[in-house]
Structures are given as structure tokens and as C-alpha cells.
């Protein structure tokens, strides 16, 4: 994974973020990832990944008042337009890689 590459977990985290709607914070993201992928992720990992994505400009964060739920301000993340573009590019790349493959037949169809 080079400086510009998108890691597996980064990819999944951004998708989870999109599933959760346009704003979300760490704890629901962790739960969403677990729910959808069956993969246990720790808050620390998710946090590091999100900050890394932010450094790359793919997500953006801001502090938001928790409103009725009470408690401290939450750091909420949203996927930036650059992030969207990046996800689309990743998807296109995966799709083109998948095109013409049929694993049930042991590879090429």
C-alpha cells in the first residue's frame, strides 16, 4: 500500500460511512463494519483509519453537538467529493477485474 493506495479497511470504512448516511462517528462505523463484513474492528483501528483518510482528503470531520443523546461533542466524518470519486474509481477497477471471471468454474469463464 503506497501513500496513494486505498487499503482494504480504508475502502470498507468509507463504504460503511456512506451506508450510515451523510454524517457519522466512530462507534456506529465500527458496528456497521462488523455487521456488514463480520469483521471485528476496534475503535482505535477505525479511528486511525479515519484520520488517515482525512489526511488523504478522502473524508472530512468536524465536531458536532450530540443533541438529544447528550454527552460530549462527537467527531463526525463525511465522505468528501474526492473520496466519492476515489470510491468510484476503485469500484470501476474492481469491476473491470471481475469482468469475465467465474470462480465456480475455477477462473475464466
Amino acid at each position: 500500500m503506497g501513500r496513494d493506495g486505498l487499503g482494504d479497511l480504508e475502502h470498507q470504512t468509507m463504504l460503511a460511512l456512506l451506508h450510515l448516511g451523510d454524517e457519522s462517528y466512530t462507534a456506529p462505523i465500527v458496528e456497521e463494519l462488523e455487521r456488514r463484513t463480520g469483521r471485528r474492528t476496534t475503535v482505535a483501528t477505525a479511528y486511525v483509519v479515519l484520520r488517515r483518510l482525512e489526511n488523504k482528503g478522502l473524508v472530512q470531520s468536524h465536531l458536532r453537538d450530540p443533541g438529544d443523546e447528550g454527552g460530549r461533542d462527537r467527531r463526525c466524518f463525511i465522505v468528501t467529493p474526492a473520496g466519492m470519486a476515489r470510491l468510484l474509481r476503485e469500484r470501476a477497477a474492481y469491476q473491470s477485474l471481475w469482468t469475465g471471471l467465474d470462480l465456480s468454474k475455477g477462473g475464466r469463464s
Partner: protein
Amino acid sequence: MNRPPRFWRRLLRVVVPPGDRETLVDELDRMFVTRRSEEGPSAAKRWYRSEVLDFVRQAPGQLTRSLVIGSGAEATRAFRGLGQTLRSLRRAPGFSSLTSGTLALGIGAGALIVGIADRALFRQLPYPEPDRIVAVLEGWGTSPGSVEVMQAEMSTVVALGAASNANGMTWERPGRPPLRVSVANLTPGYLEALGVAPAVGRLFTPEDSRPGAFPVALLGDPFWREHFSGRPTVPGETIVLDGQPHEIVGVLPTGFDLPSAQNDIWRPGVMDASNPGVHWGSGGHTVIARMKPGVTPAQVRQDVIRSSEAVRLANPLWTPNPGHWDEARVSTLQEARSRWVKGPLTVLLGAVALVLLVVSANVASLFLSRALSRSQSLTVRAALGAGSARLAWEQVLEVMVLTVGGLVAGLILAYGGLRAVQPHLPDELPGGAALDGRIVAITAGIALLTALAAATLPAMRVATHSPAPGLRASGRGGGASRSRRRATRILVGAQLAAAIVLVTSGGLLARTILALSQVDPGFSTEGRVTAQVHLPASLPTDPGARASYYEALETSILDDPGISSAALASSIPFGAEVEYVATSIDGVTMDPNDLPVIPHHRVSPSFFEVTGISLLRGRPFGSGDRVDAPLVAIVDETFEELYLSGASALGQTVRYPWRGAPPMEVVGVTAAVHHEDLASPPQATMWVPLAQMGFGALGHATAVARPRPGAGSADALVSLSGAVGAFDNRIAISDLVPYDRLLARSLAQQRLMMILLVLFAGTALILGCVGVYGVAAFSVRQRIREFGVRLALGASAPRIRRSVLGDGLRLAVPGTLIGLLLAVPAARGLESMLYGVRAFDPVTFLAAPIALGAAAMVAAYVPARRAMRVDPAVVLREE
């Protein structure tokens, strides 16, 4: 509890980047609550712990990186190598744990001793302008009457006052058993001289010291917190001490520990010149003063000497000799308080400095061998263009990471050690011992400097690395450079030298303890238990009634089935508050101002039998020695030696020093008895019958009891306190301990010193041996071909082993010799603490190098065996 475990939550706060600390901690709190309700508390705790640990794992590498790259700060970019450093240390677990462990030992020992010595030696007293507070008449006590005269006469001080010795009083608590508390009386001027402010309420006013004023009291902070739950409304409440109600007027600030840390309560001393017996007769008040600005202790001393004439003339009880204060000492309170502990503490600080020396030498050689083992990879990297500054920086990072590891482990060690030694610290240690942020910071600084210094050599070596020789030498057979070998030998030598100094010092103290434990105290403590019993204040003070009360108490203790014999005494050897009294002997001319002041115990008839003090001549006290019978006394053989030039004391007449004191006939002579310490020769002693009450009504006594055959002292303690309580539940009991504990307490300081020094010596010895092992193992690895060839040429295996062992021994010799030379001044420094062993004790000075040599041989033996087992065929094939 709906919150995550406290420890882990705190840890989380530490490792999370500050910007997101609150949000992340809060999020995890919420997730914890959810999990708790879904999966139960223990699963939730487990989950939380693993979350935090994951943060810890991420912390140095990823978190910092994400932040550093994010912020782009130039200064923090340097830490980018941190992750790599951690990885490379993880690849060398032996080196990392050895280095961190060694540092931890040094830091632990250092923080422990600094924690003990801090308040006594380094920290200023917690009062305003502490340099102006002086101990007047240091080491002497005086009476409130003299204090009043000094206050009027002295011109060099702005405030002057005195404190009585702490004395026990019984606090009668409604609905709870009575409690013994330690109370000191303060004359006006004492608290003013310190400049202390109350934590709650007010201090004493001069009115409080007027005769007839309503008794008032100040509480100490710990006492207030423990018994009054720290209520700020405590002023105005009443506390009954020895039957007399006192109004609590305030609370003294935390850490106030004058005249002694044992004090619970302070009262104003009543200044009543119309009662000369108390006003002039109660000596033992320690005087302090606040000097006027610009005045020196020497000037105060002149002032004291000048005032002594007025004090002399004012004393209505007796007339001291002119110039009685000419030898008076005046020093700052700080100096006076640490005088008795300064010597031992200095020794300990010296010992710790040696341990630190060993630690740095060890760490240096560890880094040196690591640099050597990595020199190939470093050389390659240097050749590929890595800047030398960068390579050196990596070393520094490595040092810092290891130091942090060592620091954490070391502080844990120090904290545990401090808790372990706390109960054994001498009462004279001002301020007690504690670790605080300052000590931690200082220790961390010293540790980092030590480690950096230790690593400088290798770091420089890396920084100045020119690739070519490294690459050339990297092939098989490349030997260590001569300079490196010399550096290692010097380091190992320094470690062994320090180890020798510590081993001899620890050995001398161990022999002292041994010698002291063989001194015959003159009585037997085996199986005996003791307790102080404090009579209720409401009892009549009439001597006859008191005597019968004590008699009935003793009978009641004896009736307990768990106890086979018992006695009561006003005080016992090595007990609390041994009573001293001046004594004159009829027919022996003595200076009335300089009568012998000797330990004096009022004892019941069975006392000598219970304590095993042997009566050499004459008779013991009997049941006929009562208030109305002729007064009698028993002395010991030291008394005969010192005051009767060895003549028999039987039939002599002794008296207390006051006018009209009745004669007491000496009816018996006991063997010599030690009273307060085993190291000094026994003092002359006088025993008188408890029942004769020759010294006024006695408000408290010490009970000594032997358990019935087959019972241990633990059972006897229960029996004794049970019997006393059953006799009269108004009696307060204190100091309920096995008698041998009292004796051991007198050795506590030497024992603690010995334990610490032996511990340090052991540490130094082990580290020294690790050093020897390292050098021997390295040289065997280097010479493996040589051994192979020699074995192939017919050298016998034992011969090879001898050669390696010999190398190890040769390595140990110079360090040992230097160590022995350095041990001489160290032993001289210990001299005042030694007993029964000379500072240059030949046994210790011989045993230490032998022990060290043996240890070095053991350390060299492992590599020697490896050398012996070299298979020539394998080695030669490699060639």
C-alpha cells in the same frame, strides 16, 4: 458502576491524541454501557480492555504518524522513525528487555532512595522563609519558665516558643472504646515562629495559655480526617482528653509534623508561674524561634548565652551553674531535624550513585554490543546514503524508548519498595518518605541522561561510521577492534568495582546486625507480650487506692487461663518512655547539679521472674513492700560499678534529688540491663516497688505477660488485652506487642540500612556478572575458530575451559582491586553505624572479593562450556 474500569479509562486518556481525547473516551464510554447491558459487565470490561490495549498498540506508530503527517510539523517529523525503532527493538527482545530491566533497577533504586531522603535533605520546610526558623538549644530541652524569660530577653528573634514532648492521653469517645492519642503542648510563640496558618478554624492565642482558660485543642490533619471525617465545621466541637473536655478550635495544615510526626493533637501549654513545679520543673521542651531578617544562627546563639543569666536567676526551684548554656547550639530547624538521619541517608545516596554507575556501565556495554552486532546493517545503510545524523538519531530514539520502558517499570519498583520500607523507617526521618511528581521528573531526567550518556559511545561510533572498514570487516573471522574490547573491559571493571564497594558495605552492616542480635539485653523477651494500660482519669489518685487497683489488675490478668505469669511496671526496658530520674546515694559525694540520671522502673514483685532479669544478690520485692512499709530499691551491677566503684550496693541508702526525699534502702542487685539500645553499654538502673508509689500516683503502666505453656505470643496478646478489658473496660490499651518486637524496633534503622545495601550489592553483583558473561560469551564467539583449531591440534577440552575461565578471572581482577581501594573510604563513612565489627573487618574485606570472583567464574562458566564443546570438524569445514 456504569463506567468502564477506572485504570483502563485513565490509560486510554493517556494514549489518545489530546485533540480527540474527550470525544473518543466518551464514545467508548457509551459503547461500554451498551455492551454492558447486552453482554454483561465482565464481557464489556474485557471488550473495553482490548479496545484500550489496541489504542496503546497504535499509539506510538500509527497515531503519531497520522497526526504528524496530518499536521506536517517540522519538529515532530523526527519522531517518524519511532515506529521503525519500536519494530527493530521488538526484533531484539533480549537486548530490549535486558536494557529496560537494567534501567528499571537503577531508576527503581534511585527513586526509592531519593524518595526517602527527599524531605530530610533536599526539600525546604513548608513554612514561609524557612531559613529564618532556628532550633534554639538544639538537642536540649528546657522548661516553659525559661522560655518565658528567653522571650523577654532575646533581641535577635521575632518569635520564640517551645513544644513539650509528645505524651499520650486517653480520648474518651462516647459509645466507643477509649483511644490513646499523642498530644504535644505548645507555648505561645511556637506556631508564630513557624508562621503556620490553620487549615480550618484558628490557632492558639496567648489567652489560651493563661491559667484557668478553658482548655482548647488543635487537630492534626490525618487525625481530623480519620476521626472527624474531615468536617470543616469541627471548630466548636468538644473532645474529652484524660477526663477533661477540650474545645477544638482548628485543624493544622497537612504535613504539619512538629515536634513529631506522631502527634494527633496539640494543646496550648499553660504558662502558670504560680505553679513552679510545672512551670520550671517540666523540662524537655524543645525551643524554636524565627530570627529577625539578616540575623544569623551564630548571633542567636550569643543572644541565648546572654539570656542564660536571666534564666538562671529566675529559676525558683534550683539554681543552675553560671554559664549553663555556654555550650548551647543554635542551627536552622532544617539542619537540626535532619542531623540524625543525614549520615545514613548520605550513605544510601552514595550507594545508589554506585548502583547507577553499574547500571550505566551495563547499559553502555549493552548498546556497544548491539551497535557491533548491527554494524553490518548500519554500514550497508550508510553506504546506501543514509545520513549519519539520521542513523545517530535512531540510536537516540532507541535510548529514549528503552528509557521510558525502564522508567515505568522502575517507578513501579520504587513505589512498591517504598511501601515495603515505610513501616521500618526511623521516626526521626522528617516528613516521612514519598514519591511525587518532582521526584519522578528528576528521576526520569537522570535516567534519560544516564542512558544517553551510556549510548553516546555507540551512537558516535555509528555517526562516524565510514562504510569501507565495516564492509571489509564484515566477513567471517572479523574480530572486535582492540579499542572496543578495551572499552568493554573498562565498563565491566567499573561495575565490579562498584559491586565490591556495595558488597563490603552491606557485609559490614550484616555483621553489625549479627553482632547486635547476639548482645544479651539482660532480660528475656521470648514468648513474652507487653501492653501499655492507661487508667481512666476518674480513678482516685490516692496512692493506696492506686496500688490496690494495680494489684487487682495484675491478679485479674493472672487469672486468665491463657497466661501463666504477669507483672506490671511503670516502664520496661525498650518500652515506650523509659523513665529517667536523678539519684543521690547517701555517703557518696556528688555534685548536686550533676547527679547521675538513670533509668528508673517501678515494678510489681513478679517483674524480675516474668522478664527473666536475674537477681544476683539480696532479695526481690515482696508483697510486704507497700505504701506504709519502709521504702526499698533494687539496683543493678552497672550502678555498683559506676557509682560505688564496684562495692556492694546492698544496704546503701538512695534518694530522689528533691529536698526532703525519703531514704530508700537497697535490698537487691540485678544483672546489668540494656534500656534503649543494644549498641551502647548498659546503663545504671534502679528498680523500686510499684506498690510504694514513691514517685506520685502512676496513671499508666506496662503489663508484661508470659503465655501458658504451649501457647504462642499471638494467643497471649489476645488473652492479655481480653483480661485487661474484662477487668475494667475504661482502661485504654496501647502498644500491644510481643516483647521481642520492641527489641527489634531498636535495630530497625541498622536493619533497614543493611537490607537496602545488601539489595543494592546484590543488584550490582548480578549486573556485574551479566557484564562478565557478556564479555566472555562475546570473546568465545570471536575465538571459536581458534578453539576449534586448538582442539583439532590436540588441546584437551578442560584446558580450553581453563583458558576461558582464566580470561574471566583476569577480567575481574583489576575491577576488584580498585573496588577494594574504594571500599576503604566507604567503610569509614559507615563506621558510626557499625557495632562489634571494625570498619576494616578482614573477614568482610576478604569475603567480598572471593564472592565476587566466584560469581564471575560462574558467569564465565557458561561460555567456557560452549568453548569446550566446539566441534573442530564443523569449525574447520567452515574455514
